């Protein structure tokens, strides 16, 4: 994997269809077209997270990095609980993307709303089937798909802005008619626009040069800032409140830029984002579950492979759970996807705070470990990052659509408790069973022949 593919992987993992809705939602918290400032501040914070992940990935350049640095920095049960909770973001994003693409399809085809569930089922079925057959997007295809999505989004945003006929209204006054708390909430939501850029660290074993991962994450953050800032500014400027709160604001943006052709263009672009999400999400989640099951921390059935060497139970499970979540989102209606965005933003803030903690803790526990990249002023930056990301995670978890709503927090607490309960109650039993299985299997390696002993001492001389 070269630098270009590493960049497209990092950017593509972050830029899901849900990002369009997050950008539209962010506009509600600050004055109109100054949303780019919140995205910029979130981008600066993402750079702090980049520094944390840069140091941790440099120490553990492996797909299992998250397990290694978390178990090195804290109790393994806590590490597992946090990791399982964090992994639920993948389910949420896959579910949300399937729903958004389906809703967009229903909108452009002008068909009955209930068909959205049918499209969702079909999309997830295709994703599951292709994963089970071992089909993965080649690096070049991912490069092209990501470039097309990002370029089309920027072009549509700029054209929509230029055709709106009026100058920007409040490009530098985010607090006009808005509170400082709203600005903080918008930054918390803005974190979500960069979420998952760090997942490229799981490709550490595939890159030609280990430094590619570090550079790719930095470039991805810069690209995401440009694209999301352009998109949010254009949306705030040309879309009505009603358009901003639909499940497909990007289609309205496309329509404002190029008319009906723009509508179809953005529908196609939305579908392409799903390619990246499904490809990355299914592979990342299913392979992690497989590795954890092989390790003995999840039931062995999750490590079963089909004839194409694909862990089929996790793939199927991810498809089923994602479909169930998307049905709930659809049933809840307007605020359903906003809750998902809030949950995702809060979990992302949480994992950035955890990364800050790990950096600091490992500096103490493993001071001599090789670190190709080191976070400068580590105490200040890590403690500051821990506090800021922790606060933003809490803020994001109680904000839905510019109002106080503890539902995302309740979902996260529920997921966290379920993970902790599983880790404390179930994992020890699984590990004991795995240990017993291994102990019951006789060692196959033949014993080494005994090494020749020291030479016999010569017999005492007889006088």
């Amino acid at each position, binding site marked *: 994997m070269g630098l270009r593919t590493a960049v497209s992987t990092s950017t593509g993992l972050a830029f899901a269809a849900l990002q369009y809705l997050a950008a539209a939602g962010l506009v509600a918290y600050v004055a109109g077209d100054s949303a780019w400032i919140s995205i910029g501040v979130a981008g600066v914070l993402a750079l702090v997270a980049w520094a944390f992940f840069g140091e941790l990935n440099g120490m553990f350049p492996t797909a299992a990095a998250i*397990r290694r640095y978390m178990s090195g920095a804290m109790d393994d049960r806590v590490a597992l609980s946090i990791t399982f909770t964090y992994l639920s973001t993948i389910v949420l994003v896959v579910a949300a993307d399937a729903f958004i693409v389906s809703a967009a399809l229903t909108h452009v085809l002008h068909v009955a709303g209930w068909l959205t569930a049918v499209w969702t089922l079909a999309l997830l079925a295709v994703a599951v089937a292709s994963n089970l057959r071992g089909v993965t997007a080649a690096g070049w295809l991912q490069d092209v798909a990501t470039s097309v999505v990002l370029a089309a989004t920027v072009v549509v945003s700029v054209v929509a802005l230029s055709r709106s006929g009026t100058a920007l209204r409040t490009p530098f006054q985010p607090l006009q008619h808005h509170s400082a708390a709203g600005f903080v909430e918008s930054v918390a939501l803005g974190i979500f626009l960069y979420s998952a850029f760090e997942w490229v660290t799981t490709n550490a074993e595939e890159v030609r040069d280990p430094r590619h991962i570090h550079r790719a994450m930095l470039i991805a953050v810069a690209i995401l800032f440009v694209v999301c800032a352009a998109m949010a500014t254009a949306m705030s400027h040309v879309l009505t409140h009603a358009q901003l709160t639909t499940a497909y604001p990007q289609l309205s943006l496309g329509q404002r830029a190029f008319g009906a052709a723009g509508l179809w263009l953005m529908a196609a672009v939305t579908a392409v984002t799903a390619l990246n999400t499904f490809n990355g999400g299914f592979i990342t989640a299913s*392979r992690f579950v497989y590795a954890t099951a092989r390790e003995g921390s999840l039931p062995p059935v999750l490590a079963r492979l089909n004839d194409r*060497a694909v862990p089929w139970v996790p793939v199927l499970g991810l498809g089923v759970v994602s479909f169930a979540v998307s049905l709930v989102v659809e049933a809840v209606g307007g605020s359903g996807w906003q809750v998902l965005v809030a949950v995702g933003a809060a979990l992302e803030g949480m994992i950035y705070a955890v990364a800050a903690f790990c950096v600091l803790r490992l500096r103490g526990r493993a001071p001599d470990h090789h670190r190709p990249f080191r976070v400068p002023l580590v105490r200040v930056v890590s403690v500051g990052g821990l506090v800021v990301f922790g606060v933003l995670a809490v803020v994001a978890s109680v904000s839905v659509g510019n109002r106080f709503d503890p539902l995302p927090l309740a979902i996260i607490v529920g997921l966290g408790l379920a993970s902790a309960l599983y880790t404390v109650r179930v994992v020890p039993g699984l590990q004991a069973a795995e240990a017993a299985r291994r102990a019951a299997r006789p060692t196959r390696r033949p014993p080494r022949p005994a090494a020749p002993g020291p030479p016999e001492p010569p017999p005492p001389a007889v006088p």
Partner: protein
Amino acid sequence: MATAEEIAEAYADWQGRCNGNARLARMLRGWDRTVHLVATDTGDGFTISVAGSVLADLRHGLVDRPDLVVSATSEDFADLFWGDLNPSDKYVSGEIVLAGSSEDVLRLDAMSMVAFLDQ
């Protein structure tokens, strides 16, 4: 430390189990790869290759361009080929280091699992 001969003996056993497993043959269909094994403690290098679902004999030295590179101690290689070692544990702990695509890594792990655990 395991000698090169011990690793070769272990590999021969693993090779026989893998090539005699019908399910693994289906799993390896179309997966033609060259894998380099680097023993970190002895400095020995070995090359294994898969072609047409068949695992070829072990070659001493690092031959051809590898799709996957596995670095571990000689003892770990011997235990792994005898089926006494779960490579996942050593991988997570960082004692086995891999360089290659995640799909190739998964396929290699699958060979151990299917050959010994028949899962």
